[in-house]
């Protein structure tokens, strides 16, 4: 059962081949049997999942089943879940039982999907390896001595190891696409504002966006259809109808214009990754696409811009964790300052502290223009590069990450080197564009991701390109050894 795609499972549920309760129990069993090795879950919500599965079975019997009714999924522990611990991978929220549901949680529930648990992640989504989690690192199912990527490492590893057919993630600088690439699965970051941020614990509000992890583009289309939509409770949510993301999946790729930015194939790209990506692009040629070289001349500014904008917004967002209203509170405070300082000092881990410090500095009196304003200007240049490119091409392609999964601990002491693992994904968040990573082969036995970037609200086009490629390739069906 665990080898079937979400779409196949949905068909089985409707035709009575299996019940949601059986499917949910099968996933719970997979987690019990395999997750001790991976550490991809922070919380497994067995009793709630079984109750939701029984409700889904009743809905299916009554003929009220949608495409996600009865499908088990794992939810990144950044989304608030009413009555269930929502830790955000931090000691700060280790005791936090969310008092309300995030909009995405609510929408998945309304779609009849069965939440099976909350997945491990880098602390407050700050990291590219899942090593900054208070709950310990997640292991990559393809090689347990390597990282799964981050920050949504648990969600990616759980799908790659066939523990669940789908999961949710969030992507501020690559946190869906980079772990999808490193774990050999499909991950989609929608256009900024497409999926509601309400109840999704904020890291960098002008960059954060939620999206799905699945094995295939077809499954991702179904997940995105449920997650997306206007939400008046998110002030940057975009009021625009949601496409039927499955409608265009099979459209022919004849005449699709693909752009390859020279900047994404230069120094720093691992040769094996480059070869796999080039081979994948050749497949798109065979499918009828045309390929053009393009340039994104301000690419080199994207990581430095991000490491001003993201920490600045993080230092502001994380000021709400003060030991007063929720979360960790230090014992026996001397005075109010001591309460704030020690609650935050004890509750936050190293990388979160580093980013709060960088952001506080960048926003402090006398430095605002030199850092934050300058970065917002550079951000405009980076966005303009993409707008220029989309005059010539429909989809921009390249590698998702410069290398395959690196070893646990390899970059843990060198923040700048860790930041550079998101070099191809970060510009997309700064511009607010939709992008997807799909499996495109292997290098040294480890998965490689192909990165596809579209124009605003062109998720359907990316899903179409991904789906057609997955009709002629089988990388997305490969399962890591030991998890077959």
């Amino acid at each position, binding site marked *: 059962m665990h080898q079937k795609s979400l779409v196949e499972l949905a068909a089985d549920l409707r035709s009575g081949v299996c019940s949601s309760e059986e499917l949910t129990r099968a996933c719970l069993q997979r987690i019990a049997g395999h997750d001790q090795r991976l550490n991809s879950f922070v919380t497994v919500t067995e009793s709630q999942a079984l109750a939701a599965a029984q409700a889904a079975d009743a809905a299916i019997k009554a003929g009220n089943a949608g495409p996600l009714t009865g499908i088990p999924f794992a939810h990144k522990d950044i989304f608030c879940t009413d009555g269930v611990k929502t830790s955000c991978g931090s000691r700060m929220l280790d005791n*936090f*039982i*969310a*008092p309300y549901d995030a909009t995405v949680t609510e929408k998945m529930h309304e779609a009849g999907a069965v939440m099976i648990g909350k997945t491990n992640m880098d602390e407050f989504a700050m990291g590219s390896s899942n090593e900054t989690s208070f709950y310990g690192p997640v292991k990559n199912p393809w090689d347990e001595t390597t990282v799964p990527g981050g920050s949504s490492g648990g969600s990616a590893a759980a799908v790659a190891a066939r523990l669940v057919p789908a999961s949710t993630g969030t992507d501020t600088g690559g946190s869906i696409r980079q772990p999808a690439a490193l774990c050999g699965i499909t991950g989609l970051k929608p256009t*900024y*504002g497409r999926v509601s941020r309400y109840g999704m614990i904020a890291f960098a509000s*002008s960059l954060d966006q939620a999206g799905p992890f699945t094995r295939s583009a077809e499954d991702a289309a179904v997940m995105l259809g449920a997650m997306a939509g206007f939400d*008046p409770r998110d*002030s*940057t949510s*975009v*009021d625009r109808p949601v496409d039927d993301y499955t409608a265009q999946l099979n459209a022919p790729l004849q005449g699709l214009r693909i752009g390859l930015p020279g900047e994404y194939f230069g120094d720093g790209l691992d040769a094996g990754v480059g070869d796999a990506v080039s081979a994948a692009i050749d497949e798109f040629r065979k499918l009828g696409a045309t390929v053009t070289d393009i340039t994104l001349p*301000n690419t080199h*500014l994207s*990581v*430095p*811009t991000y*490491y001003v904008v993201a920490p600045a917004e993080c*230092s502001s967002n994380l*000021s709400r964790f003060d*030991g*007063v*209203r929720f979360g960790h*509170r230090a014992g026996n*405070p*001397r*005075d*109010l300052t*001591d309460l*704030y*300082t*020690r609650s*935050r*000092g*004890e509750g*936050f881990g*190293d990388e979160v*502290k*580093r980013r*709060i*410090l*960088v952001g506080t*500095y960048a926003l*402090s009196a006398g430095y605002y223009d030199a*850092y934050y*304003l*300058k970065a*917002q*200007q*550079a*951000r*405009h*240049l980076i*966005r303009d590069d993409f707008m220029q490119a989309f005059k010539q091409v429909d989809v921009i392609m390249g590698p998702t990450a410069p290398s395959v999964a690196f070893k646990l601990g390899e970059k843990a002491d060198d*923040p700048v080197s860790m*930041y550079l693992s998101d070099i191809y994904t970060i510009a997309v968040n700064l*511009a*607010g*564009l939709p992008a997807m990573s799909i499996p495109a082969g292997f290098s040294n036995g480890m998965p490689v991701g192909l990165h596809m970037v579209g124009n*605003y609200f062109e998720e359907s086009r990316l899903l179409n390109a991904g789906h057609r490629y997955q009709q002629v390739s089988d990388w997305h069906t490969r399962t890591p050894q030991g998890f077959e």
Partner: protein
Amino acid sequence: MSLDASDVVKIAHLARLGINVDDIPGYARNLSDILSFVEQLNSVDTTGVEPLAHPLEATQRLRPDVVTEGNNREHFQQVAPETESGLYLVPQVIE
């Protein structure tokens, strides 16, 4: 840009963020590395470029000023570390 230990202490105070004395040199080194790295931004001329705050250049949406939520104080205070009579408790601020 290079930060020393006293800069780190000052920034940590601004952020009301407790850090261990032993960790200060490490933070000073990491922060200096990060700031030197972001200084690449100075290589580009941004004269006259509008800062981009929202990727879609959307402005904040407003809604009518009417009550839309009920009073959920008790429910939300269940996750608070210390409360009394509907109030959040903090150490004494005024003598």
